[in-house]
């Protein structure tokens, strides 16, 4: 201790913080790798002992089962069954995300309403639904609502003679054929609507008169769709009860309906809270400024508050969308033929469990990652560009 070390001397290697950090990280990595290796070699040894295949060749075996509402022949390979399951998962996820966003936003706004009844109902809805386990809600929806409340097919409800509601599903009017005519008309109408809204905005900018984009846009859309119907016809087919099934129209599987409603109701209670919080996070000066400009209540919400609220809400909404997609796997418990149900069925009929579920897991992962990429892109476009 007689002479102080010179200032920049290197510490010994076992006390060098950079070396220690590296060493620690490498150690953790090595431990994790060793753990994975150990688990994997155990798995290998066990499957080798019992001759269980570890590859994906089982996908070429015949599926041997059919899927309600899908054209899967039982001689088609397991691969096709998985594809149908994937479509069914996407079907409930996409419809569910759209509906739950709308419902959640409405309930979220209602939570802040000045009207006591509206506010109380919205609060009760959120608190009730949010505090029930999803599986219980789904089982209840299936057993109590769809099975017991909906009538048997013999005395199905026929509201307006447009729908057929029974515990074998809900049939709605649908167009016959591929629907190209309808889709073309819809696409055309959408483009025309967009142009009209843009033009209105421009004329409003130059004249100073209110744009009324919503009014003009919506009427353009409706007029074009009706005109398309008169000119081309959409081949609407109304559903009807045919013996013990429904014919015509589009039949929504009862389990699809139960799963969809449950997911929408459940997720929207969470989304409502996110929307409420985000609206409250918009500085109150914004709403006051809108009042000062004499905007109506609707305009204030639609043009000033909500766009800013959604900027705040977007990342949290993305999470809820991912939850909804993953929760759709609970459909397997009520006989909705989504990915998990397909995996369970094929495993019960001779497909090896580990490869089949690894595949299922990866498909969910891909769906979720793609969704989060989309949400991230949307988020980036919504985010404030700061200079």
């Amino acid at each position, binding site marked *: 201790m007689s002479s102080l070390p010179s200032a920049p001397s290197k510490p010994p290697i076992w006390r060098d913080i950079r070396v220690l950090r590296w060493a620690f990280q490498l150690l953790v990595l090595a431990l994790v790798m060793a753990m994975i290796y150990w688990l994997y070699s155990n798995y290998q040894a*066990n499957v080798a002992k019992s001759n269980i295949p570890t590859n994906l060749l089982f996908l070429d075996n015949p599926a041997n089962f059919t899927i309600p509402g899908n054209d899967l022949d039982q001689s088609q390979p397991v691969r096709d069954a998985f594809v149908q399951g994937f479509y069914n998962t996407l079907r409930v996820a996409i419809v569910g995300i759209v509906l739950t966003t709308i419902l959640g936003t409405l309930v979220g706004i209602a939570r802040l309403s000045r009207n006591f009844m509206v506010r109380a109902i919205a609060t009760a809805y959120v608190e009730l639904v949010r505090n029930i386990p999803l599986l219980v809600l789904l089982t209840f929806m299936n057993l109590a609502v769809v099975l017991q409340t909906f009538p048997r097919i013999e005395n199905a409800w026929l509201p307006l003679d447009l729908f057929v509601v029974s515990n074998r599903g809900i049939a709605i009017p649908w167009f016959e054929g591929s629907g190209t005519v309808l889709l073309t008309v819809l696409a055309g109408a959408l483009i025309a609507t967009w142009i009209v809204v843009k033009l209105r905005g421009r004329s409003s900018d130059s004249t100073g008169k209110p744009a009324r984009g919503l009014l003009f846009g919506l009427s353009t859309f409706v007029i074009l769709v009706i005109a398309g119907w008169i000119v081309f016809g959409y081949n609407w087919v109304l559903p009807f009860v045919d013996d013990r099934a429904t014919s015509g129209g589009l039949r929504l599987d009862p389990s699809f309906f139960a799963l969809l409603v449950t997911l929408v109701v459940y997720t929207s209670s969470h989304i409502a809270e996110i929307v409420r919080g985000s609206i409250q996070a918009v500085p109150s000066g914004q709403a006051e400024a809108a009042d000062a400009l004499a905007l109506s209540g609707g305009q204030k919400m639609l043009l000033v508050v909500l766009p800013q609220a959604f900027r705040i809400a977007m990342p949290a909404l993305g999470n809820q969308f991912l939850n909804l997609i993953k929760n759709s796997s609970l459909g397997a418990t009520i006989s909705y033929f989504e990915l998990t149900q397909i995996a369970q069925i094929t495993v019960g009929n001779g497909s090896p469990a580990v490869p089949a579920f690894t595949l299922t897991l990866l498909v969910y*992962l891909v769906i979720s990652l793609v969704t*989060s990429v989309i949400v991230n892109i949307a988020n980036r476009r919504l985010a404030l560009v700061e200079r």
Partner: protein
Amino acid sequence: MKKTVSIMAALAAVTLVVSGCAAAEDTSATDDTSTTETTTETAANSVLASVIEADVVKCGTRDALPGFAVLQEDGEHQGFDSDFCRAIAAAVLGDASKVEMVDLETADRFTALQSGAIDVLVRNTTWTASRDGAEGVTFMHPNFYDGQGMMVTSGSYASVGDMNGAVVCVAKGTTTEGNAALESSRLGLDWEIRSFDETDLILEAFIAGQCDGWSSDVSQLTGFRSAYPNGAEALTILPEVFSKEPLAPAVLDGDTQWAQVVSWAIFATIQAEEFGLTSANVDDISASTGDVSIQRFLGVEIVTDGASSVLDPGLSLPTDFAYQVVKQVGNYGEIFERNLSPLGLERGLNSLWTDGGLMYAPPYR
């Protein structure tokens, strides 16, 4: 974009770890045998050794199939399959109560066996080629020969051929799904086949009128019919039987010793019925009989010219295993009458071969 990629990479890594864990959970229970070096003694690797060491047989079964396995209010399982679980315990451990019933979902049963969560599966499971092959399990002698049938509400249909466009409900992950689909396309009936996790759910759907038909093995349908809330007369089992369903206990592939033990526990019940041995008379007969084949079977000392011997065929079972099975559980006929006759099931194919049935045990000598 970079951030997204790194998040994706992290997620992928996490998934790998998680899936690794999941795979390990499936298999870890049998690790002790897989990682140790191979010994010359197969017995050390056999499930038999671990069963004897644990002093309990873990038997994969179910909890709500009338006649075959029902979990009673007192926590005991009662039924045909449950009794075969007990017969295995009686044979191996000498005590029919040393059995742990593990209730399994239909879709999980093979995984449970593969992972070593159970030692033997006696769960109303149909023996098929692809299960034998791809699931890594070996089936034993069937303890029940069954066939798939269709149950409907009385008066709705007279035969399977009438059920055009019907909704048919089945249990998930079973051979039933495939058989129903096959029958539907063979008869050109365009059935909508819905599969459910649990028979309770099928029951709910059936009562509510979501299903026109309930298809399953006839024995199961008979059981459910007898327990139907609105009375058995409300349901009719249609006369057609459209598949072969040999229901057999199963063990893991690659363990011949354990497989033989389980086989002979089942054979013992059949052989005992053939000999006329029942749980009531087995004590008397074993004391008094002079029939050498019965003495061999029961592990009684055979005295010839002053020298006495007991037959030990080398199955790694106690020599008196058949006695224990018959004494504690009963012969095949007793097990059948105790559990299945009350449901109204006939012996049929499950009669002894001497009565024109399929129940036949190899000779015990």
